[in-house]
């Protein structure tokens, strides 16, 4: 089994105008930098993007926003991005805000064949409008539906030709659940290793969820909030 594709451009082949894509990452941490660059090159438009955040003006999904390639964002938090704000206020960009835990669980559910589930998150808020409410253990819950996508673009630390993935630190975040929920899942990795190099007991995401894999390059890994203490 060999899921390796030659380049980021090959990896995103088949993403068409108007499709729904999931993009892994939290803030700028663990985002598929090479896939995003390939999408900019491809110029595909009218995308619905499911991603926890929307990048910053000149990095991450912000690069797609600059080129007006995104029609709709489905996210939990979209601050720190002026172009996003401009497009949203002007009505060019549709935005669907979802509680972060519901977003994660809805992606997992989409990948796991669970079409809907009850969660307490958002009950009594505008998020619950139009949604079924049911009490369990004396506490009201709302019914949330699974999310899936035509393509999921994720970033891992290491991967093998079988599509098995290992993530590093908090760059894991939404990547595994989105990989589960993509009809076609593309994984870019910092290091592509030989079959057998990854310990089967310590694989974060089994390759069964990944259809295409390639080694990315030139990772910038920009830090949004560099916070440090001095050694004194």
């Amino acid at each position, binding site marked *: 089994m060999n899921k390796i594709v030659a380049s980021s451009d090959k990896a995103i082949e088949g993403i068409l105008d108007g499709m729904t894509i999931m993009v892994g990452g939290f803030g700028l941490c663990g985002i598929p930098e090479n896939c995003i660059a390939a999408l900019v090159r491809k110029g595909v438009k009218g995308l619905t993007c499911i991603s926890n955040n929307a990048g910053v003006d000149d990095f991450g999904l912000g690069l797609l926003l600059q080129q007006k390639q995104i029609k709709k964002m489905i996210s939990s938090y979209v601050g720190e991005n002026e172009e996003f704000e401009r497009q949203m206020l002007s009505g060019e960009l549709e935005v669907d805000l979802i509680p972060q835990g519901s977003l994660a669980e809805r992606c997992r559910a989409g990948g796991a064949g669970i079409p809907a589930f009850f969660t307490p998150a958002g009950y009594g808020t505008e998020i619950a409008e139009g949604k079924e409410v049911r009490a369990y253990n004396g506490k009201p819950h709302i019914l949330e539906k699974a999310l899936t996508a035509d393509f999921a673009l994720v970033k891992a630390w290491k991967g093998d030709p079988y599509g098995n993935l290992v993530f590093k630190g908090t760059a894991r975040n939404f990547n*595994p659940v989105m990989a589960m929920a993509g009809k076609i899942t593309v994984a870019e990795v910092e290091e592509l290793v030989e079959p057998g190099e990854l310990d089967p007991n310590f694989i974060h995401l089994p390759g069964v969820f990944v259809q295409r894999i390639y080694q990315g390059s030139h990772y910038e890994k920009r830090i949004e909030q560099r916070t440090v203490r001095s050694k004194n």
Partner: protein
Amino acid sequence: MLKREEIAQRIAQELRDGWYVNLGIGIPTLVANYIPEGISVEFQSENGILGMGPFPYEGTEDADLINAGKQTVTIRDGGSIFDSSLSFAMIRGQHVQLTVLGAMEVSEKGDIANWKIPGRMVKGMGGAMDLVASADNIIVAMSHTNKRGESKLLKECTLPLTGVACVKKIVTNLAVLDVTDEGFKLLERAPGVSVETIIQSTEGKLIVDGEIPEMQI
């Protein structure tokens, strides 16, 4: 009137040994600096980390190790990393004993509003709605009044809600209050702050029962 650091210091007194704690952005983050002697707590950040340590030393920061505020952090011995769905499984499943977060408004029923101001750019609720809907123990850290001097402890929230009937305790620059079935119950006042000042600064129903002690910080 308490400073931001003192609000955090007072909240830190609520920590109990063995608790897992999720701290929101702003004043709540400062709580980590005032853990009482002799107790051990673990900090959870909803982007997928348990056992969060202090900020890294200059030059050792790692882009792949951040907290939910997108700040570079460290991880302590005994910590762990996980994906977003397991992170919220912990939160929703009530395995995290305490959530501390900021608010724009809290109602006397414990409703909280902290994510959206109509007419202003909406950035999103992030994990706040999951946290407030799930946690058994929610402490709000905030100033008692807003910039225009209006009370943030209200009869009813005026802003879009983040969660309903969920806040258990509030620590402001003026007071410590419990949210009870009958309304806000005044427990402590900030050093030098009179009960009268607190009454004037609280729009929602305030229960003042007997002598109100000064906070010990």
